[in-house]
Structure formats: structure tokens, C-alpha cells
């Protein structure tokens, strides 16, 4: 179910500006990989190339290869829409559909993907909400709007919505940066459970968070403002935070810059 991501020689542009350059890495299935690095280093841009969301931005363009198991996401004749059904995404700010109920939010992706019977939908919605540790809090008000929930609940609703379609990979773009510490803890616990079923990639500004939730950590950096961001190193999280092989990583982690 979960799939391996194999990136080679990936470069992304905004118009003529090169945002990230020549990134190669492998992400193992059923693992959590964290991207860390200073603002503007291109880690979010890189994340968005993994489900072809980058090219939605006007001027967004990508070169290189992203293999999901053996299939090149940027291959000839690959439909970005079908890529995004395989690679789910959770955003920085919780963004449930404000006009939909909690139930409809979770069912939104399923309804796009095909015809489900009402009972099937109910089962999957319940399973997804349970998977996102939200079921007990919302089971009595599934028909209420999702925008009535707290920020942390909304973000778990968004996670439930993303996992309802059973993606192979789950991308998370700073999923806790708009949340309080207790909600953050709830999401981090959830990430630990979700990695049993999905390949997870998470961008975070919070290095303790990277250390807590991830198996592998990738450090991104850029030489100067206006220069493209690059992958400095990727290694086991333990090693990155104790004994990184590149000096810049150690400087960043110990707070000497960035």
C-alpha cells in the first residue's frame, strides 16, 4: 500500500527563478521523513513537487524525476490529477471546506473518486475519522460544519480527509505551525500511528518535532537569498541530530544560524 519515493535530479522553477536545484533522495515506505531548513530554502517547494502541486502556481515548472515505486510522476502522459489521488497532502493552515459538513469534508475525496454506496461512505468516513483520532470528538455532530471545530480538530479533519482516499504517500506541509502545543502533540501522536500505513513526508520549522516524529531527516539550505535551495544531507534522524556529516547541518541544528 505505502510506496517508496525515489527522486533524482529534481529542479523546480518559479518563472525564471530557480527555487530548488538538483535534489535526489529516497524515501522508504512506511517511514516518516522530515524536511528541515531555514525559511526560503525550498523545502515546501520540494514537497509540492512530490504531488505535482508545484506546477499549479503560475510559472511553476519542474525538471527531473520522481519515481513512486517504479512510476515516474513526471513521465509522459501522466495526469497530475491521478498523481494527487495517490499522494495526499495536508497543509500549513487547516483548510476544511467551509461550506461542507464534517462528514462531507471527509467524504469529499471519495466522492471525486467514484460512486460509493451510502453505507460504504459511512464506513470509510468513520474509519478515517478514527484513523485521525477525531471520531470520538465529532461522532455526534457529523452534520455540523467543519469550520466550527477548533484549529487542532480542523487539522485532524484535514488529515482524515486526506487518508480517506487511501493515498500511497502523505505529504504534510508544516501541519502544526498554526496549532497550540496540545493540538500539536495530538498530531504528532497521530503521525506515529499513520506511518504504519503510509509513507509520510513532513516539512517542519520545529526541530524538536522533526526529532520526535521522524525516522529520517533531510536538511535543506541555500547559499544566499535568490540562490536555489539545495539538499545538504539526508540521514537517520538520530544521526542528523547527534553527529551530522556536514558542518552546515550542525550549525543549523545547534542554532548557530538560520
Amino acid at each position, binding site marked *: 500500500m505505502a510506496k517508496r519515493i525515489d527522486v533524482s535530479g529534481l529542479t523546480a522553477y518559479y518563472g525564471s527563478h530557480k527555487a530548488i536545484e538538483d535534489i535526489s533522495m529516497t524515501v522508504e515506505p512506511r517511514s516518516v521523513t522530515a524536511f528541515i531548513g531555514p525559511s526560503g530554502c525550498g523545502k515546501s517547494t520540494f514537497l509540492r513537487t512530490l*504531488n505535482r*502541486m508545484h506546477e*499549479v502556481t*503560475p510559472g511553476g515548472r519542474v525538471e527531473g524525476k520522481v519515481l513512486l515505486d517504479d512510476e515516474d510522476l513526471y513521465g509522459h502522459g501522466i495526469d497530475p*490529477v*491521478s*498523481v*494527487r*489521488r495517490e499522494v*495526499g*497532502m495536508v*497543509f500549513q*493552515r487547516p*483548510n*476544511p*471546506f*467551509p*461550506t*461542507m*459538513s464534517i462528514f462531507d469534508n471527509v467524504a*469529499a*475525496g471519495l466522492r*471525486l*473518486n467514484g460512486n460509493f454506496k451510502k453505507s460504504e461512505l459511512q464506513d470509510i468516513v468513520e474509519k478515517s475519522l478514527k484513523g485521525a483520532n477525531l471520531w470520538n470528538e465529532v461522532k455526534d455532530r457529523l452534520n455540523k*460544519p467543519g*469550520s*466550527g471545530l477548533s484549529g487542532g480538530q480542523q487539522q485532524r479533519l*484535514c488529515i482524515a*480527509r*486526506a487518508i480517506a*482516499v487511501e493515498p500511497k504517500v502523505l505529504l504534510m506541509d508544516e501541519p502544526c505551525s498554526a496549532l497550540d502545543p496540545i493540538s500539536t502533540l495530538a498530531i504528532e501522536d497521530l503521525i506515529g500511528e499513520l506511518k504504519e500505513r503510509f509513507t509520510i513526508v513532513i516539512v517542519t520549522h520545529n526541530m524538536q518535532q522533526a526529532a520526535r516524529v521522524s525516522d529520517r531527516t533531510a536538511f535543506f539550505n541555500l547559499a544566499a537569498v535568490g540562490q536555489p535551495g539545495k539538499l545538504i544531507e539526508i540521514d537517520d534522524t538520530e544521526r542528523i541530530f547527534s553527529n551530522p556529516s556536514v558542518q552546515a547541518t550542525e550549525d543549523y541544528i545547534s542554532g548557530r544560524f538560520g
Partner: protein
Amino acid sequence: MDISTKKSQNTDEAPPPAAPPTQAEQKRAARGATRPGDRIFLGLSRGSGILLLVIMAAIAVFLTYRATLAISKDEANFLTAFEWNTNLIPPKFGIAVLAFGTVVSSIIAMAIAVPIAVAIALFLTHYAPRRLSGPIAYVIDLLAAVPSIVYGLWGALILVPQMDGLFGWLNNYLGWTGIFSWDEGAPRSMLTVGVLLAIMILPIITNVSREVFRQVPQTHEEAALALGATRWEVVRMAVLPFGRSGVISASMLGLGRALGETMAVATVLSPDFDIHASLLNPGGGTFAQNIASKFNEATEFGRDALIASGLVLFVITLLVNGAARAIIARRKEYSGANA
């Protein structure tokens, strides 16, 4: 009793404790010091608000007063009579035909204009390349600026002759319904008026809808995209629901214009005082058109009668606006404004 309290006050040696500030005083204090500019601005804005209410009240009083003068002498049923004979003794007139014509022509206009306007707005905000959407939006703004008499002349000279083909086709295929039967008269009918009104209200509905669709938060569209939605599915999941109440408001602005449109209708329509089942045969009338056509030659009493019909149009417009507000408010908790 009186004396004793006075006495006790006099003998009280401690100074009276300062009264705690009342709520009003606290509120005033919270606003901070006021300078002349504050007072002048407060006066101006409050005065403008009051002026608006006074004008509205004056119009309502004027309409009601003159209308009562006319209606009290009406020998026919004012709401249901199919005639407008204010010069008869006793006078007989009723607004049934005008109400029917006004509502029907506006419904036709809305049925044509709203879907097209929403489609144009979606195209401009979500499909057209930016280089194209600017000029198109500009042209639509220009359309809104064309005076209604010009639309009327264009309608009478260009649109009416062109309607023959459409009317013939409708008569051939849908004539059996009765609504689209046609006796080959000049196509100066309710359908032509509706088409013309649709063109006239298209710009305002398009412009307001465009603004609403432009404000759909990027995060909602990305949420749909990330679920694997196609562009149309993004529009359906994120854009249309968010813009729903805005589109309703936009439509109400257009409907207001269609209900009250005068010159264009008067120029195109060939009126009579009857209700026709067919939208294709000439005849019928609207409130505004009827007032414009008859006002100059009307007697004092005839004018009062026309004012009475204007009052009914006023009430219909109020009802429509109220209904629209109710629709918007009904699902407020689901509106995009909570996001």
C-alpha cells in the same frame, strides 16, 4: 422624614464619596479624548445616516399618500383588474397585467443572464490566461456603462428583427406548450424584452460574481486539488460553494435593475393590457414601462394611479430583496465567511 435626611446630610462631616463611574461614562472615557475633527466627522456621518432615513420616509409617505388618493376612487379591483382606464368616470384600473409582465420579463432575464454571468466570471477568474481576462473584464465594465435608452434603440432596431428566426424555431418545436406559440406578429414580446434585459443585467452580475470568485481562499482550492480534483471539480467543491451567497447578491442587483428598467422595455415592447400565455406574442406591460408611456399625457388623477402602480413595484422589490437576504442567512454557518 424629609427634614431628618437633610439633617443627616448636613451633619455628615466626611466628604461624599466619589460616585463610581456609570456605564455610559466608562464607555465615553474608553473612546478617549475628542478633538474638533472627531466631533465634525461624527456629526457629518450621523447626519448622512439620518438624511437617508428621512429621504426613504419621504418617498414612502409621498407614494402612499398619492396612491391612496387614486386607489380609493378605483371602481375596479386594483390588484386584479385587466384594464387601465383612469379617464373613465368612474375610473377603472388594476395592476395585474403590469405585475405579471414585470415578473415574467425579469424571470426570463434572470434565467438567461445568471448562468452566463457565472460562467463568464468563472472563466475570467479560473480559466482565462491573465493576459485575456483583463481586457474582457474591461469590455464588460463598458457594457455596464451603456445608457439604457441606447440598449432600447439597439433592441428595437437590431434585436427585434433578429428574433424572427428564434421565434419561428421555438414555435415549430415548442409551440404545442402554448408558452412558445407564435402568431407571426412583430416579435416585440415579453421574450424579446427578457432577452434584452438579460443583456443589460449581465455586466453587473458578472462583475460582482467575478469579485466573489476571486476572493476564494487559495487554501480551499489547494485542498480540493490535493484530493485529486480536476479543475471543474475544484470549481464545484471550493469555488461555487464559497461564492454562492455572493452570486445571489449579485443576481439581486441584476434583478433590481431588470424590475425597474424603463426605457429599454418601453422602446422594445408593443404593449397592451392583457395577460398572454405565450411569451412570443406581443403585448403585456411592466410597471416602469407603463408609467413612462402614460405619465406625460396623464391627468392629475391618472398620475396618482401611476404612482400607485409604482408603489406596488417598490413593494415587490422590497420582497425580493428580503427573500434574497433570507436565502443567504439560512445557511450562514456554512458560508465561506467563517473560514
